């Protein structure tokens, strides 16, 4: 639904269009690769093999997430990169968490991004971050970031309630 409504159509400067299109393509390709890696890791686990596909893609994922100059594209609800990031953080079919490096690098990247309500709704990233606050499996350092993010992301929603009361 959110993708159809396209509520945050980016205002594009003419000169930037090519570059932005290129970045959007790059993100779209990465999303496909990320989703394949998630499936491949689950299959590997089921066969008793090591889940390495997501790990191999991780440098590319964090490179995009950490590039401040393309934050608009990364956080665009239409490109919805954070939905694939959510898949990366999800527990595998056997209930185990993705590798610690994946958790650490992605949570650190998420903590630096100005994530708004719109991208939260389109990506569902809040659901998996909330799961990390409830699970006993993550390292304390990861849980701390997850708890902080849930706090930060719920603040605008809760603040609105306060505003109504005034």
């Amino acid at each position, binding site marked *: 639904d959110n993708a159809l409504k396209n509520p945050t159509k980016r205002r594009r400067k003419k000169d930037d269009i090519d570059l932005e299109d290129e970045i959007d393509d790059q993100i779209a390709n990465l999303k496909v690769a990320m989703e394949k890696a998630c499936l491949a890791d689950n299959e590997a686990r089921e066969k008793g093999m090591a889940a390495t596909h997501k790990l191999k893609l991780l440098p590319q994922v964090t490179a995009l997430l950490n590039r401040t100059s393309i934050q608009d594209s990364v956080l665009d609800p239409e490109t919805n990169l954070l939905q694939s990031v959510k898949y990366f953080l999800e527990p595998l079919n056997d209930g185990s968490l993705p590798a610690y490096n994946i958790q650490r690098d992605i949570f650190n990247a998420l903590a630096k991004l100005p994530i708004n309500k719109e991208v939260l*709704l389109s990506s569902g990233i809040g659901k998996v971050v909330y799961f990390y*606050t409830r699970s006993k499996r993550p390292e304390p350092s990861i849980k701390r970031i997850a708890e902080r993010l849930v706090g930060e992301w719920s603040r605008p929603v809760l603040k609105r*309630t306060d505003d109504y009361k005034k």
Partner: protein
Amino acid sequence: PRDKGLAVDATGLDKDALDDMEAIFGTGEDYAWALELEEDEELHEHEEQ
């Protein structure tokens, strides 16, 4: 047993805010299966000790 539900104390929240919280963070059911697996594993470990 783990508490189910929202990420914050929902007391005093209006319905719109509650709906938003659920839309963003889920109802607690989304990954309940993983939490259940976790608890089963823990139980199993205790039994083995």
